[in-house]
């Protein structure tokens, strides 16, 4: 039985957007609508707010392995991760010229300082450092966060975006709720039947959505979900079910994801392109919509290593994800020099061990090109899981 050609076409179209580093699709959208486009770095910004003001949120994930980094490397020492280098490179080579602004979420010190560099390198664009609170009390951190959202909305309006209204924001929240629901369904399908949703394919679809308005990415997700669910040509194989942790900011090369799958792993949960899942549930559309956005971040965001875990047990989320995904092991797969991921890793390892899950760890850079060692490591890990499970 051969694959449904509509599925092949959808994935191919997503692949074209995935490779669109010069943001041609964004330029086309701007030409079509006359709206503003604002980029954001991983891992989360409230896209609903931008959308409600008629702004296209554009997810930037650094560079691909084929991007030659020349200028970017001149800005960073050898011990700094790769994402800021490629971001600078793409900025300086004009790839981001279509963007009217860039939002820098509070991920780590490198991204924080990059926001200042951007202010100086690109003084004509809006630069907003998105300083999410680490205090989750609604009256303290929530109040601070709300003021930051209001400041962002004002800054966007000053650049020509529509002023923010409650009605528009409610509509945007509803649109993104549907978008997130479909992503959750895709992840659930992959947990149940990982052969139906190969991660290297899901990943490309998720990345493509970063360059599309939500009105287009939602039908794409729905189409992919329907087509891949129905495709009987995809049959289960004897693979180990693994959870991949640590790749929430600088993304692994697509070839690395393929390598893990080819080495005998079904990736049944991951941290890739986390913006689609950073808020875990629907955001209510009643009441004050801006406060709803605030509350969602305070109470319903994933336990990212970039967030302070004030209460409970550190790593409890990983244990929960292991249980929900029935993963048989964890691949700690973090970018080199990624402080949040690597500083979290000893605590995450202990969580995996509490859950009785075997684990292994390796690092990558977004431009890694050689995967033989990782393939052997992951393959041996998958084999050991399968052998141990059958014992």
């Amino acid at each position: 039985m051969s694959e449904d050609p509509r599925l092949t076409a959808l994935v191919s179209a997503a692949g074209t957007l995935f490779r669109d580093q010069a943001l041609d699709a964004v330029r086309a959208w701007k030409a079509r609508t006359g709206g503003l486009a604002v980029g954001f770095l991983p891992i989360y910004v409230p896209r609903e707010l931008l959308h409600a003001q008629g702004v296209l949120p554009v997810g930037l994930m650094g560079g691909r392995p084929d991007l030659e980094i020349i200028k970017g490397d001149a800005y960073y020492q050898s011990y700094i991760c790769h994402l800021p280098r490629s971001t600078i490179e793409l900025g300086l080579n004009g790839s981001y010229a279509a963007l009217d602004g860039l939002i820098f979420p509070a991920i780590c010190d490198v991204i924080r300082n990059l926001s200042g560099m951007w202010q100086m390198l690109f003084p004509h664009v809006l630069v907003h450092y998105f300083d999410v609170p680490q205090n989750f009390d609604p009256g303290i951190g929530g109040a601070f966060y709300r003021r930051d959202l209001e400041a962002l909305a004002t800054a966007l309006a000053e650049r020509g975006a529509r002023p923010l209204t409650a009605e528009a924001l409610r509509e945007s929240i509803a649109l993104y709720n549907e978008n997130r629901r479909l992503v959750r369904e895709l992840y659930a399908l992959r947990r149940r039947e990982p052969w139906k949703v190969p991660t290297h394919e899901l990943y490309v679809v998720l990345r493509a959505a970063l360059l599309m308005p939500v009105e287009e990415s939602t039908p794409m997700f729905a189409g992919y979900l329907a087509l891949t669910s129905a495709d009987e040509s995809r049959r289960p194989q004897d693979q180990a079910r693994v959870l991949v942790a640590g790749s929430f900011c600088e993304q692994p090369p697509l070839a690395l994801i393929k390598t893990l799958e080819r080495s005998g792993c079904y990736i049944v949960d991951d941290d890739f392109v986390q913006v689609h899942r950073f808020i875990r549930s629907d955001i209510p559309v009643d009441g004050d919509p801006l406060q709803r956005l605030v509350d969602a971040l305070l109470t319903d965001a994933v336990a990212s290593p970039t967030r302070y875990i004030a209460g409970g047990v550190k790593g409890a989320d990983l244990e929960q994800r292991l249980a929900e995904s029935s993963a048989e092991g964890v691949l700690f797969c973090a970018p080199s020099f990624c402080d949040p991921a690597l500083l979290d890793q000893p605590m995450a390892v202990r969580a995996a061990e509490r859950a009785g899950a075997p684990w292994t760890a390796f690092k990558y850079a977004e431009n890694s090109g050689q995967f033989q060692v990782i393939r052997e490591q992951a393959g041996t890990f998958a084999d050991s899981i399968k052998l141990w499970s059958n014992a």
Partner: protein
Amino acid sequence: MSPAPTAAAPARKDDSQVRQKAMIARHFDRLAAAPETGARTAYTFVPGNLTELLLSFDVLPVLPEINALQSAMRGKTAEYIAIAEKHGHSEDVCTYVKSDIGMMKSGNIGPTGQRLPSPDLLLLSYTGCFTFMKWFELLREEYHCPVAMLHVPYQADGRITDAMRTYVVDQLKQVVIPKLEEVTGRKYDEDRLREHLARSAQAEDDLVWVLQSAKNVPSPIDAYFGAVYYVGPIFSAFRGTTDAVDYYRELREEIAERIRQGKGPVTPEGEVERERFRVVVEGPPNWTSFRQFWKMFADEGAVAVASTYSKVGGVYDLGFRHDPDHPLETLADYCLGCYTNLSLPTRIDLLTRYVSEYRADGFLINSVKSCNSFSAGQLHILREVEARSGRPGGFIESDLVDPRYFSAANIKNRLESYFQMIEQKRPGVAS
């Protein structure tokens, strides 16, 4: 491989240094005795610390960064880092964290050879460094003690907004102070806090005078290596104490005398007799080879006339003083204003200003692998300051406390080349 450092002669010490050493010894005696005396201890950080608030509750501060750098100066960090890496910590991350964890796993013996008490509170009050948050998450798993978190927003647009100040003050009122009350069983005493804050401001005046004395030619101080000692009390457990007030008064008098005598700075090897190069330095020092590193400058007659490291616990020369009339607001402004919480453009402005105001021949960046807060963006800083100041910039790389990342021969070569470059670019020197 780096050549082994030669055996050093005993370091020369001024009276103020002797006083400081005694202050530190008394503090560690109190810490060592805490299990018997019942004194409460809080582990906390240097940038954005709340020492006055802790003292108003009679809580003794312990600063893991200081312990890590002291461990490096005692040659212990290679061992401690290896222990942490054996426990799963990556070779890529901050070596202060690994040194601290290695020290803890080795019995938590502090810089004076006495055991440090376990914390009664982890006061996660930090500025300008994301790693601190992870550090205390890691320590929380080890110590199982209460944690108070004070999140300080970043000055991304180069200014403190009312929203930022309100956020910090709200946290002080509703999180930090109640936690201190809970841990100590004492009520918050604002009058007591004001007394400490007034003493802080007094000491801060004298510190600024000392650091700005480097505007003299020759400079009577080294504002990078020497300043490490000058800022020690005020950035750590002593701000707000009479000890600190007395120390800075004595230090100021010492420096005033040096100016009167037209003397250069004192180094561990003796005085710099001829000031050949005046440089502004960005970035923390290397601690594992601190004395050797300093000597590389002193041997060339290079004197640091200003540094950003000496502002890591407060950029007092921009005018900030702790204000007893607005106790919580002033603590918020202090936290928000520490050097690594300043935006990159602000840091560039500050460095350019230092080069001009301190009549520097150039500026040098020591980029340390452990600290992205300082280091990410320093090559951009280098280009910008060079362009704006018209003075040559130099760039060397090392680490805070990991001896594997201090290549003495390499750094010495680079420094010598850099000083030659300054010499060649002096007005009147033919190219």
